[in-house]
């Protein structure tokens, strides 16, 4: 193996995190936008590429590790979270990211996603949700809305789709966020928060598959209309939205649900809800907000401080206390 040149990691730029591989996504794919944001974030975090590992399953999204100069692992469909867990336990000093599509994370890998989240291993799971199986040419996925016509659902899907944020909260994730591919001024901040969280961080990134599911998220990732279709969450800030910031969310204690109000028509007894990312009940109510009718919440939906797995198990230092010799003594 070549010796890595010693380089001042604080001087690394976004381009230093790119690889020499030819990018094989379709022109216009939302994955390019996520890759761009990720390179910027890695440069800002300022760790050396050899302290970082990207683990992916199979799918278009899962090609991600090839395009970064970090370590990478293109594993088996649905199994990335399990492999990433092993990588992190073998060397807790590494920054471990998991990348997968909605098929990878929510169908074949659903159970691994569940266990990674509830175990709270310090890895960052990024779900590239395009609501379709892209790589295999456009079959419906667990996140496809009812009515989705595809080669495997020619009459339109009749299944209730998985709401990924609701799933993650239900699985016991202590960090749940959502972002969108093309919102390049928003996405990097969410990725940085996911990285800063000690424990399993789950980020759903709404990603446009231009070829098999173009426009699946409507106005959300259309930059000119996004402010009307989304509410950008900031901890401690009122939940207002709209280009003119003329609408907001009010929490109805009676129904336990959010309601949309126009600020001009706000009744004197109502107040715009303040986002509290540590409030689990509110996070669940936020997960229910969907288009049409409601702005889709983007940003950190839920974040709860909790001891991550390695610390909880009492491992310390760069290696587990169970060295080879100790393991042998067990057998």
């Amino acid at each position: 193996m070549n010796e890595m040149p010693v380089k001042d990691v604080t001087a690394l730029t976004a381009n230093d995190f790119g690889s020499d591989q030819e990018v094989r996504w379709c022109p216009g794919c939302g994955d390019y936008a996520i890759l761009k944001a990720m390179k910027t974030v890695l440069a800002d975090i300022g760790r050396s590429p050899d302290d970082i590992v990207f683990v992916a399953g199979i799918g278009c999204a899962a090609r991600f590790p090839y395009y970064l100069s970090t370590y990478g692992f293109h594993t088996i469909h649905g199994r990335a979270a399990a492999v990433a867990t092993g990588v992190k336990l073998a060397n807790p000093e590494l920054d471990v990211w998991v990348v997968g599509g909605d098929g990878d994370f929510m169908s074949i890998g659903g159970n691994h996603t569940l266990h990674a989240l509830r175990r709270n291993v310090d890895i960052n799971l990024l779900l590239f949700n395009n609501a379709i199986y892209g790589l295999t040419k456009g079959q419906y996925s667990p996140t496809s809305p009812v009515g989705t016509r595809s080669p495997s659902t020619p009459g339109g899907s009749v299944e209730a789709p998985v709401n990924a944020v609701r799933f993650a909260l239900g699985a016991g994730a202590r960090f749940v966020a959502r972002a969108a591919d093309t919102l390049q001024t928003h996405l990097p901040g969410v990725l940085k928060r996911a990285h800063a969280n000690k424990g399993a961080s789950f980020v759903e990134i709404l990603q446009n598959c231009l070829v098999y599911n173009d426009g699946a998220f409507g106005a959300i990732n259309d930059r000119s209309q996004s402010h009307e279709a989304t509410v950008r969450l900031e901890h401690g800030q009122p939940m207002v939205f709209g280009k003119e910031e003329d609408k907001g969310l009010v929490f109805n204690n009676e129904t336990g649900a959010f309601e949309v109000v126009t600020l001009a028509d706000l009744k004197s007894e109502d107040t715009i809800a303040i986002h509290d990312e540590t409030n689990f009940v509110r996070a669940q109510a936020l997960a229910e907000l969907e288009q049409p009718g409601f702005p889709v919440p983007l940003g950190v939906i839920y974040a709860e401080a909790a001891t991550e797995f390695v610390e909880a198990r009492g491992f310390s230092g760069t290696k587990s206390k169970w060295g080879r010799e100790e393991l042998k003594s067990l057998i």
Partner: protein
Amino acid sequence: MTYAVTEACIRCKYTDCVEVCPVDCFYEGENMLVIHPDECIDCGVCEPECPEEAIVPDTEPNTEQWVALNQKYSEIWPNITERKDPPADADVWSGKPDKMDYISPSPAST
């Protein structure tokens, strides 16, 4: 990396590229468009849309000058996010070589 608009766009400005860019990173001068290299996500979807074949990836040789020009003007020209009609004489200038002499440094009048 980035994509960049070259001189073939000058006085043609068909703006087909603007319609497809997922991150709206085109900027409009009086007679040419440019791409903001820091905002372009390298998705390549605009390249085949351009009838003048004016858009190139910077991985092609001798594109440094175009990237520099795109960088410079994207910082001073206004953002363009919707397609508009080309100049009336666009077809006259279509396919003409060496149009750099005609570039206008002025921003588009909006």
